């Protein structure tokens, strides 16, 4: 009997041991090998290398749709299924109608969530070098997204003003339970500049792949931001710093004008790769570049044939530095030259400004056909630079921000006009419709105030 009790006892002990003894280790095994809780430097880098999130079709394009560089025929406008896209084209007061949510808002904030996740993950890393590299990249991505959101959903940056109008919510932590609060335009720009300044100290000169941030990219974005703020000395300084690191221009003579998609993605001129959120209006069956702009390209200007093609009677765009039908909106060397030129002329260094412009344009005209620009009495150098800026950077998501900036100067103001189904729509300078409303779900879930259009 004792022996049997002992046996029974042993069995019970064995069973209990089975349940409690190996419990911990046994249940710690990862359920799916492809799944990770992102904690290591490798994991965090992989989050940033997710180009579908960080680089592709993620920059707000509602502005570009209303920036006046293309026109739509009535039938082509009417058949756009998304109300927000039709509304953005005619600068309607209400953009989203009954559309519940908006990619233009969600995608940049998705980048910010990834960036914040990495910033927080990097703080926990033991290896300081890895942590710094990751932090630098993440700060760059975050600044990139904040800056793009400011251009579309925030009030315009007013030159020489205090800029305490509403900007965008600056989410600086990944925790999804934190509330979203709108900060001022000034705070937004300050955040972008501080993120970029810190990032530029942590990033390598040039990136391993151009979908990542680099010193060159951080400088280039700083140049763009300071230009937006009218701080030409700083803008010039950063444009030059960026050009010191990367200055190669594509020679458009070496690019086939008959190719359907002439420019390669991640080409030599690209400093940082990014794309606009796709809109139906961008497709080659809809978009028709405004004749005024198309005609402003000279006969020997290769951009005329490399950027545009005749698609059944209308001029569609094919000059994107990425795979069509998507529009490149990243940073490239040509933009740096144009920023440099604009800053120089604004600092009354017209000759130098023209020199810079000529450096760019010689690569844009047929070999031997380019006549270097010289100062003229008919057109100020600033006009010349701004005209080339519009022509070179067409459909890169820059025009809308430029309009918000340039319309503050009475000499450069322009009113946008569109006609759809016999009705004329106008967008005068400084109009509150230069600021997009917040999407419906954001308003409902966050309780943040909307923009008054």
């Amino acid at each position, binding site marked *: *009997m004792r022996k*049997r009790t002992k*046996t*029974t006892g042993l*069995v019970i002990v*064995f*069973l209990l041991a*089975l*349940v409690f003894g*190996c419990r*911990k280790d*046994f*249940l*710690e*095994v990862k*359920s*799916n*090998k*492809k*799944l*990770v*809780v*992102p904690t290591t430097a*490798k*994991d965090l880098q*992989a*989050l940033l*290398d*997710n*180009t*579908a*999130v960080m*680089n*592709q079709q993620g920059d707000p394009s509602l502005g570009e749709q209303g920036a006046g560089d293309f026109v739509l025929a009535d039938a082509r406008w009417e058949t756009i299924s998304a109300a927000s896209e039709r509304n953005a084209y005619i600068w309607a007061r209400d953009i989203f*109608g*009954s559309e*519940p*949510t908006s*990619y233009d*808002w*969600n*995608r940049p*904030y*998705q980048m910010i*969530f*990834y960036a914040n*996740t990495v910033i927080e993950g990097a703080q926990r890393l033991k290896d300081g070098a890895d942590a710094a590299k990751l932090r630098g990249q993440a700060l760059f991505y975050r600044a990139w997204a904040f800056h793009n959101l400011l251009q579309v959903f925030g009030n315009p940056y007013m030159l020489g003003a205090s800029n305490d109008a509403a900007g965008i919510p600056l*989410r600086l932590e*990944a925790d*999804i339970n934190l509330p*979203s609060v709108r900060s001022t335009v000034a705070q937004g720009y300050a955040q972008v500049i501080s993120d970029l300044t810190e990032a530029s100290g942590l990033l390598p000169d040039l990136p391993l*792949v151009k979908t990542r941030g680099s010193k060159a990219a951080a400088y280039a974005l700083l140049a763009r931001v300071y230009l937006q703020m009218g701080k030409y000395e700083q803008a010039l300084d950063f444009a030059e710093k960026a050009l010191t690191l990367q200055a190669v221009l594509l020679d458009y003579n070496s690019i086939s004008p008959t190719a*359907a*998609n002439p420019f390669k993605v991640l080409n030599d001129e690209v400093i940082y*790769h990014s794309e606009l959120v796709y809109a139906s209006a961008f497709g080659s069956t809809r978009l028709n570049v405004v004749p005024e702009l198309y005609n402003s390209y000279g006969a020997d200007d290769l951009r005329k044939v490399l950027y545009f093609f005749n698609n059944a009677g209308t001029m569609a765009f094919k000059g994107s530095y990425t795979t069509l039908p998507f529009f490149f909106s990243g940073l490239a060397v040509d933009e740096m030259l144009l920023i440099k030129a604009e800053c120089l002329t604004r600092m009354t260094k017209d000759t130098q400004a023209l020199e810079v412009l000529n450096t760019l344009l010689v690569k844009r005209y047929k070999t031997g056909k380019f006549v270097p620009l010289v100062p003229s009495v008919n057109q100020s150098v600033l006009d010349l630079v701004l005209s080339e800026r519009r022509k070179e950077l067409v459909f890169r998501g820059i025009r809308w921000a430029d309009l918000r900036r340039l319309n503050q100067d009475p000499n450069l103001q322009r009113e946008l006009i569109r006609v759809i189904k016999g009705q004329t729509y106008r967008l005068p300078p400084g109009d509150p419709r230069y600021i997009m409303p917040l999407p*419906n*779900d*954001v308003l*409902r*879930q966050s309780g943040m105030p909307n923009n008054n259009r």
Partner: protein
Amino acid sequence: MMEGLRYRAVRFLILCFLLGLTVASFGQIKGRVVDGADGRSLSSAVIKVKGSSFVVMSDSSGRFVVPSESKVLLVSLTGYAPMEQVVAGAELGVLVRLVASIKLLDQVVVNTGYQQLVRERVTGSFVKVDSALLNRSASADLLGRLEGTVPGLVFDRRGVEPEFDRSTTKLRIRGESSINVATEPLVVVDNFPYEGDLTNINPSDVESVTVLKDAAAASIWGAKAGNGVIVITTKKGKYNGPLEISFGSNLIYSPKPDLYYDRGFMPSVDFIEAERAFFAKGFYSALENDLGKSVLSPVVELLFDGKNGRLTSAQVDAAISGLSDNDIRKQANQLLYRGSMLSQSSLSISGGSARSSSILNLGYNNSLASVRGNQSNRLTLNTQHRYRPLEKLELTVGLFLVQARELENGVAFSDLGVGAYPYAQLEDTDGNPLALVRDFRRSYVLQAPALSLLDWQYRPVQERDLLDNTNTTRELRTSFGLKYGPFRGFNVQLDYQFQGQWTDRENLYAKDSYYVRNLVNRYTQADGSMAFPNGAVLDANSSYKSGHSLRGQLNYQQSFGIHSVNLLLGAEGREVVAETNGLKLYGYDPEVLTFADRLDFVTRYPTRPRLTAQLPTNSGAVGSLTDRFLSSYVNGSYSLLERYTLSGSARLDGSNLFGVKANQKSVPLWSAGLAWNMDKEQFLKFPWLDRLKLRASYGFNGNIDNRISAFVTASYANDPLTGQRRASVLNPGNPQLRWEKVQITNLGLDFGFFGRFGGSLEYYVKRGKDLLGNRTIDPTTGLGAAAITNLVNYASTRTNGLDFSLDYRSKGAIRWTASLLLSYAKDIVTEYEEKANVPVITLVTGTVVPPATGRSLNSIYSLPWYGLDPATGDPLVMVGGVLGKDYTGYFQQLKPEQLIYHGRGNPLLTGFVRNGISYGNFSLSATLSFKTGYYFKRDGLNYSTLFSSGAGNVEFASRWKVPGDEQFTSVPAIPASINANRETVYGQSSLMVERGDHIRLQDVNLSYQLKLPSRTKMGLRVMQLYLLGNNLGLLYRANKLGLDPDMPLAIYPLAPTFTIGIKTNLN
């Protein structure tokens, strides 16, 4: 000997002492109750001493002890004829042989997967299906044979498309109680969860199936039991059983599918009329000079030829009228399909001695599917042995092997693609294969030889021979068991099972197959070089799944006079690893096994007819999933006087739910139950009452979802743009994550009268609690973009239902048997966040309708129908109280309250009626099934899909043509321009919603059974021949269009099957 006796007495004494009971211990008579037929020990038999108040029950090995002064014992046990046994003077022991009573209610033992329970003592909801009922049907897979045998078990075939896959049938036990997690029951085979493909189980190997429906029955399965449990028990050999050989064979035939069923198919004449009308309206003009060389139909090509003067209009008309007599279904039916034939054979050998028993089952299936070129076979071997080397020790060993092979080279009607115009032909009058348009225009494809490209035409009839698609499945399951009973009523049990399943899927596209030719041509460069290698393509995927399960369990079962106790305590660990890997080889040569291994996947090549593209990637896929579970459980019951039973069960589950903090991994799930055998009460002792039992139970089952996690999780892939490794956030992290719970209350009444009627009625309430639901979140958090879900445990559902079954069996020479099964289940969502960010239209068009509080999980909504515009025949819509045709504006202003809510998409009431009659050796039976209280949506004419893909509707013939037609028809006129919104107004209107109610003749079975008298020598004992028809058609349907409401969107319904079979038994 003396010592042994003394020892036994001492042991008995100690036991009695320990349990605080005293029983007369001097001068005893020991006895054992066994089955008179097979010598099996019978537990729970009630032994009364005649003329005294002494009552005792036999224990698990059939043994009992009575005082020595006993003279005559009255022994009774449900399912056996009561008997009187004279024991006076039987000091050496007595063997009571009970003879099974031929009564309607035999003693039923149900298997929960952890223990065997006598039905009298169960408190939960169990339904047992024995092998006789399983074998009434001849379905090739086991689960199919359960249809119509278990109340509350419903087969949901709404997603079934017989053309593609039959396995999309979903099983539901008492409705659905989860929103975002699996809703299918757990399947257990021989006491362990089954991880393989259920079609690998040979139905003739199965002894019985038990369905566990409520908490008291299923909570022993804990966190996986939320949707009910199906326990499958395979046949075992019997101790002391004679050598028995049985052989069975079925031949199952099914006629060709009915291609003429599909209302989406328009007759050639109508189709041509539509194409001419579209052409006249200029719909095709954009395609005429399309650089992408989009497909145009033969008629449209002819019309362009006419327009451009290449043909005269008379030539065009003549050519078109030549086509209008064709009907592709005729040739498809002839060339692509055949009647399917399945043969099933099984052989079983079993036998046993006092110390061992064995069984060997062999099965072979061979199937020729209805699509020519598709065929399969399956070989199963199953052997189980039990040894009792010592009285107290039992060892079991089982081995189960399967090899199944499937060839899938057929080209089905739906594989023909866009080119299957009603007037298209698959072969010419001389039997030469003809080409169908497929990816590009015919005129473009025909240029191929002139451009030194490969032949670019698609000839479906030839393709069959150019494919070699093979699926091979091998399965090995092996189990070891040890049961040791050191003393009476108590035993220790250890069970281990290994299950491995290897699946290889190999698709070989021959060099000449269209698949290869198309890729080669598309990537052939201007200089004629082939960027895509001109050779066969091999696409091979294999997966391996292995499971180890180990269980230790203590069982205690004892009766003390009027008390009986049943206790079980155990723990188990389980690991399931699933690994997959795949490879794809281009330029493969199956003769010498070489392939192209220096391909450039980075360069963008110019492709034909235009654009550029990288080569389609051939990278393989690798995956590895590990699921681990660790559980401990306790289960017990106490019965008083065989009348009152109280049961309880509790279980703690842990799993390696990825990322969850360890202390939140476990969830305790429990249940409690009560049963009252009323027929044993004196005040209910009526001669006509055979059985009356009341049951009540309450408890919780669980459900899990291992896709979500408490931490931020991400998954890896390769970034196509940069080639870097990239990670995507799958889950933002939810520290409050819990397992879903299903709370079940069950009330049941089992009854039997007059020895003829029997049945049960059950009422239940199932509440899904802490269900995972999507919660909308401020997109500024970064979770607004797709691919990130925010699932939180907050939703809840409630299902109320009734399960009813009634059986009748008459007596006499002509015997009539009848049974009725009813399942009623009504589910509603009691808490779910209204999805404000889901467009209203998805309530109507969504394949998964978003849940709404207060409505069924499967709701059917539609758009209101306002009729046709009398002037144009366009559908009308109401915007701001005004009828008009502003379709865009209509959908923009659409609010959920404007939609029509019809009701449920799954039946409220499902029932089966089976009637049988038998006379002599013949018996005939038939089953009718019906479903009611639900709706389904049919397809209507959609000009947008008709234009883009040729998918039309026979309604076209009755469309609006001239003003006034709106009085007779609701089918819109041919539109002035294609507008998808306009088509949605009609296609999702209330006109498309039909009542699902129907009655189906499920089966008819005629059998002849020959029983031969026992002889001393081995020989034929039983032979059964039978004819069986299954799925014989609808006798009534509420819809007037001839649609099968079980699968409204299928292009043809499941064909009927006819079986001829034989079963023989030798011993």
